[in-house]
């Protein structure tokens, strides 16, 4: 099995450069190459294929962010890194679901990856809050915020899309939306605490 995987897998440095250059092809190849390994880990340790997908995508995101942030060093094999992150994340989920039987059945070598996993879950919490806040924000605020802050549209473009008569109105509207979003976001934070 592993032989077949390796033949189609991009080399580790290919992956790093591919992610840095936003190469869709490399992302796809690395994703396809290592998914079976993680699927094997999860389904043989009380998980489903969907669990495997979630965990694996999280691990890919961890890798992606690490490479993008520029502090990814190829100290170990990429494969081992991904496996270790997935393993760590899955252990965490198992204990949350109290399905954890004490130990996981391993299929690969693995490393301790506490930092990556912790950092990732911390950011995940922030993103979940942001998602919730945006949902509550409602239209047209949500689209204005997304267009301006995510898709980097100019105020001029936004004016046109929403039919505002002048840019000032649009700016005021965007300002109010942002204030409300902050309020919603931090409200959630308080509620969680």
């Amino acid at each position, binding site marked *: 099995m592993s032989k077949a995987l390796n033949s189609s897998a991009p080399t580790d440095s290919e992956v790093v450069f591919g992610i840095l250059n936003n190469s869709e092809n490399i992302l796809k190849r690395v994703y396809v190459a290592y*998914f079976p390994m993680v699927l094997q880990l999860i389904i043989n340790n009380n998980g489903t294929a969907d669990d495997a997908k979630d965990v694996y995508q999280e691990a890919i995101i961890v890798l992606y962010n690490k490479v993008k942030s520029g502090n990814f060093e190829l100290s170990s094999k990429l494969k081992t890194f991904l496996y270790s992150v997935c393993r760590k994340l899955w252990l965490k989920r198992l204990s949350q679901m109290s399905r954890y039987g004490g130990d996981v059945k391993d299929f690969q070598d693995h490393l301790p990856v506490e930092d990556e996993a912790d950092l990732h879950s911390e950011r995940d919490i922030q993103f979940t809050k942001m998602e919730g806040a945006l949902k509550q924000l409602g239209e047209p605020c949500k689209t204005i915020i997304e267009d301006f802050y995510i898709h980097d549209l100019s105020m001029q473009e936004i004016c046109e899309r929403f039919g505002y008569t002048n840019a000032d109105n649009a700016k005021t509207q965007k300002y109010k939306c942002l204030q409300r979003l902050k309020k919603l976001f931090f409200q959630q934070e308080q509620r969680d605490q």
Partner: protein
Amino acid sequence: MSDLQLTELIERYLAGDLSNEEKERFEALRKENAAVDSRITEHAHFTGLIKQYGERVELEKRLNAIHQEIDVDTLVQELTVHPTLIVRLWRNHHSKISVAASIAVFAILSTLYFTGRFNKTTASNYTALSRKIESVRRTAENAQRTNQALLNSLKPGHRVTNPGTTGGSGFALTQSGYIVTAFHVVNNADSLYVQNALGESYHAKLIYTEPTRDIAIIKIDDKEFTGLDKLPYNFKRTKLDVGEEVITLGFPRDDPYYAKGYISSATGLEGDTAAYQVSLPVYAGISGGPLLDTKGNVIGIISGKQTRTESAAFAVKSSYIFKAAQNVSTDSTQNVIALKPNKAAKSALAGLSRTQQIKKLESYVFMVKVYN
């Protein structure tokens, strides 16, 4: 400056849209006003988070798209570690299996308990060789013997025709009519008769028992009994070595039965030091018979055999006969059994051929008939 304006300024500042002049003024403001400075940091962080969130959503979309192309089901099939049949059976049915196993264990234990397997006695392994005389045979013989009784009543030493409930063998200790036999032969006896090879029966009474050693001593008390000739055999006190040839004579049936064998162990069942193990073909009814060496010395009393093994008999060692005889003499003034190991004198049997030995022995070995 309104909050709206400040926010706009911050955004433009962060985006690098300010003119040099504006930028200088703003940076000066930032330096002297800590509130403005923290507003900038906070704004940068929050908008950064929005941006990152957007990127994350985007990335997840891309990953989902890639995931769509993977044939997950086939992979699941391939990669599931299939445990062996036994493991699967165990996983699916372990509670049932456990219950069944405990019931089975319980059943076995209770069966063993009720069949007496846990009683530590060696009874199952050991058969006392006293003879149970079957009622069928008795009735058949009774008919035949009634006729004989008429004939034999004329002869001295009248014959008792009833063969008794159980029977065994015994042999003379003294000329005066003391006979040693196995305890289990005479146990629970209401009345005792001894019968010699000629078919002459005499009434006997129980003198002494030693259940632990399976020894009993009885005495002929019959008017017809006139005593025996000098005993042809000696009693040997010392132990015999393993491998020495031995013979026995007893009454598994109405005629004397002879068997030859050898000492196969210096201890009896489960290491019983009071007994020998003897390799001899034995039958029920031979219990209490003498075990002699080839020179005509009594070395033991046949007491039983091992159930599961052919021709593995046990014999109580002759030293216990001496002890029993001594006990009888000290217990009562009436009964005196002087049993001396006669080392010097050769027994009368020594040097005779086997057939002659047996002929001589016959008169001193008795069938013990027990009525109860």
